[in-house]
């Protein structure tokens, strides 16, 4: 049984300490929801697991199937079965979805995937996610709407069949119909094999569709509360204030809003207002 085990994880980003001792264990086939206010380390945790070069692990460990993930390069982590559906998928002009996905599938196999097999698999996945038929020939995420990019992450996930998938605010940018399509595709994968999931979302509606067994709330770089699906429902209804009070903690302050730069428009309005007085 493959297990992801994170112990006392501390992570710095550009010299700032974001994760301050995270412990999390995900067993095969389990679905974990990761909640918490913005800017408190949820995405940092997922990026650190996947190996983003900007995220520096200063303390702690991550193991997957008994192997030290922190010693693996990003591509090795992927080949080991880890997958991150990104919050902001990159646009790669000049590289078609089909070339990219075929290359990604081939690195997981001894022999290249036959073209016919690949085309059939791609067609099925495009149909599952209700994407446009020309997806295969379009450049990777280039010119895609926000929702298309998110669905394309699941296209990739379905074709690469990871053992554990991390979904970083996958539901942001998806309309209600698309949310159901994506959730259905993910649940179909779970029915096919024991896929583990770590899901970051602010919305209980997505969790209703994915049905996590475990919910973790992250505040200021630590997991402070854990529970089952009822916890996600409570947060959806009551927010996070009760957690701050009950556990006597404060969230990491969100980035200060940018100081509003003076503009000709605002000055002109202000002067007009003054003149009318």
């Amino acid at each position, binding site marked *: 049984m493959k297990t992801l085990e994170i112990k006392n994880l501390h992570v710095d980003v550009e010299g700032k300490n974001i994760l301050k001792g995270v412990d999390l264990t995900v067993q095969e086939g389990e679905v974990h929801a990761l909640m918490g206010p913005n800017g408190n380390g949820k995405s940092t945790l997922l990026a650190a697991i996947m*190996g*983003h*070069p900007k995220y520096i692990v200063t303390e702690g460990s991550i193991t997957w199937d008994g192997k030290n993930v922190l010693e693996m390069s990003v*591509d090795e982590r992927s080949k080991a079965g880890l997958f991150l559906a*990104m919050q902001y998928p*990159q646009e790669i002009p*000049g*590289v078609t979805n089909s*070339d990219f996905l075929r290359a990604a599938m081939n690195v997981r196999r001894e022999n290249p995937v036959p073209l016919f097999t690949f085309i059939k698999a791609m067609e099925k996945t495009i149909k599952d996610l209700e994407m446009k038929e020309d997806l295969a020939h379009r450049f990777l995420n280039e010119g895609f709407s926000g929702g298309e990019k998110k669905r394309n992450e699941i296209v990739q996930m379905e074709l690469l069949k990871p053992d554990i998938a991390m979904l970083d605010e996958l539901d942001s940018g998806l309309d209600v119909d698309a949310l159901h399509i994506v959730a259905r595709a993910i649940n179909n994968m779970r029915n096919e094999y024991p896929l583990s999931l770590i899901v970051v979302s602010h919305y209980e509606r997505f969790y209703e569709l994915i049905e996590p067994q475990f919910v973790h709330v992250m505040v200021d770089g630590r997991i402070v509360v854990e529970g089952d699906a009822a916890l996600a429902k409570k947060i959806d209804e009551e927010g996070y204030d009760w957690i701050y009070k009950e556990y006597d903690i404060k969230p990491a302050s969100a980035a200060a809003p940018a100081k509003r730069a003076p503009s000709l428009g605002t000055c002109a309005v202000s002067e007009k207002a003054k003149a009318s007085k």
Partner: protein
Amino acid sequence: MRDIRVNEDILLHEGFEEYVIDSIRDLDLSIRFTPNAQALFRIRNAKSLRIRGYAEDGCESTILFWNECQAPLKADETYEVNEGAHIVIAYGECAGTETERSTYVALRKPYAHAEVVSASLVSSPLNYRMNVVHFAPHTLGEIRNFAVVLRTGKLMIDAIGKIVKGAYASKSHQTSRALSFEEGQRSTILPELLIDENDVEASHAMSIGRVDDEQLYYMMSRGLTLQQCTALLSAGYLLPVADVIEDPQVQSLLRAELERKLSEL
């Protein structure tokens, strides 16, 4: 396929033709474009090439020079484009040897149209000088360069679009892009527009830069190594040059050759 080993006057014919330039001498070639001609020139061996091209009124032709030289190449090319003619002059540079190329295109008569296109995998010094000069009204000149500069490569592109007085309603456009994967690589692109007429359209776009780290991370997070990412991104940059020849078989052959080069990176 026809071998060219000595100085020749080449008359292109309608349809697709393939020539192989293979000579230990300096070569002097003249090329006469004819309507609907598509020609692939594989340059296997040539010390120095001097090419003079002539496109008669109304002809539409494409030539693609595919550099396979194992030794340094120096090419000096001049093309005359006449009324209503449309020619495409394309270069596929993936030999990895030092290359110096000067291309001069004269849009001599009204409605002449020339496209100068290059795709280069640069692992040695590569020096392009491209000069498209509009001598008549309603002419269109386009320069498009795409280069992937590898660690040992050094790229220099001097791209000039010139519109002389009296060549009104002409359009001169150019795009040059160079992509590198490591720091410390040298690329120089000089886009120049020399305009001596008011009623014209002219533009240039240029970019030189490393592949974005976030893009590499994204691709690697799907299991591709840095080398595989390099090959895939380079292919996206360079392979479209093969499509200037309309024959699908030739396209796939050239693409396969380029992909083989990229897989060896």
